């Protein structure tokens, strides 16, 4: 028999878990976005040493499981004197993870803007950063908006691996409540529902933001 009642006592714990999950996703999302933007811009400048460094970073992150990345940051960095509590370690690991994917997405977005657009900006006497900010940025953002937002959804779900180092996000909360109530089915059904709702909420939010931010008509 399904019995969700024993879970009510842990309402606060679940809410705490949801908030921590959202916090992790938003911190890693924003920091990763900034990191990805910087890396993508540096990649465009064609400095060979910097490119090699960034490409290695991307390949290492892309081709190893995020769980191991989180382990290395949590268990290994203290050996060299960098001690992060679980939440911070998870935030750092997820930022590095998200940043690597974002770098590639943003780079492809910047490359998708025709050279002639950049040239037209220069010919009007704009400075390089003005061309970037006013001419390139928004159309590039529009082109990569779907992949960027899907990547964020994957990040949101990926925060669950922070439970491996006992960061107290939603998945960790589930494990704790499960061990106290022995209602595994109900616990995991509940948090699955919560994850699905969070994902739907973010998709709707992103859809609305997209409609507001990218209103200009485009050729089909």
């Amino acid at each position: 028999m399904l019995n969700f009642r024993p879970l009510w006592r842990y309402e606060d714990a679940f809410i705490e878990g949801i908030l921590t999950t959202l916090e992790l996703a938003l911190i890693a999302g924003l920091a990763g976005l900034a990191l990805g933007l910087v890396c993508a811009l540096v990649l465009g400048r064609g400095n060979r040493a910097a490119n090699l460094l960034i490409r290695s970073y991307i390949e290492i992150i892309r081709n190893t499981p995020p769980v191991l990345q989180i382990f290395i940051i949590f268990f290994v960095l203290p050996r060299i004197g960098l001690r992060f509590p679980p939440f911070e370690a998870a935030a750092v690991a997820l930022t590095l993870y998200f940043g690597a994917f974002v770098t590639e997405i943003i780079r492809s977005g910047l490359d998708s803007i025709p050279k002639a657009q950049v040239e037209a900006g220069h010919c009007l006497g704009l400075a390089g950063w003005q061309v970037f900010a006013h001419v390139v940025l928004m159309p590039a953002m529009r082109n990569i908006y779907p992949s960027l937002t899907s990547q964020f959804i994957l990040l949101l779900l990926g925060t669950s691996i922070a439970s491996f180092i006992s960061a107290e996000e939603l998945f960790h909360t589930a494990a704790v409540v499960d061990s106290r109530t022995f209602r595994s089915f109900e616990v995991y059904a509940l948090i699955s529902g919560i994850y699905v709702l969070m994902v739907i909420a973010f998709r709707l939010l992103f859809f609305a933001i997209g409609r507001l931010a990218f209103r200009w008509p485009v050729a089909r």
Partner: protein
Amino acid sequence: MALVEIKNLRKTFGKLEVIKDVSLTVEQGDIVAIIGRSGSGKSTLLRCINGLEDIQGGSITVGGRDVSAKMAGLKEYRQRVGIVFQQFNLFPHMNVLKNVTLAPILTGKIKKPQARKLAEDSLTTVGLLDKIEAWPEQLSGGQQQRVAIARCLAMKPELMLFDEVTSALDPELVGEVLKVMEDMARQGMTMILVTHEMNFARNVANKVVFMHHGRIWEQGHPDQMLGDPQTPELQAFISSSRT
């Protein structure tokens, strides 16, 4: 002193020599039409004048200043020279008003409150005042090209460059763009244009330059150039462009 003075210009792309020893003088108020087959170097010449290409020899002087892609003050120079391309290159994410006023505002030519007035003036010149709120994608090719011209005019340039501005247009839209250019010519704008429109070259330009294999093959008054071509190459070009 001449507004544009080009002396012994040389431009190469790798081993390919696109412009060989070109010299050309453009006076204030001149309308210079550059004609020639594709690959003759005429578009590259325009791009050099705007500092879009670095040059391998000779010099370009505009308003007494040496021009190159690496010159100091290239930005300020470009604010004085407008260029219109074959592909209009309007910014798709800005409406017509923003397309026209972006550069004057960002380069500090005007304050935001005066921007609309400036845009209205420029758009009136090209006859598109009613499209001030439209998005580029909603305009026809001819209208987009006229907005591109208005965008340059808003910078109050001393010199306008036109790079085959009607070549990408449907035939029925060419006239409206040429008419705008004709009006600008009549108001005394100095213009250098690369074009395939022989009638426009004949009727509006006061100087025609025929480029062939990266050199200026012949230049002179339109009537003489197009009515009585001296070289067999120009004769062949003119008869081929009539058909």
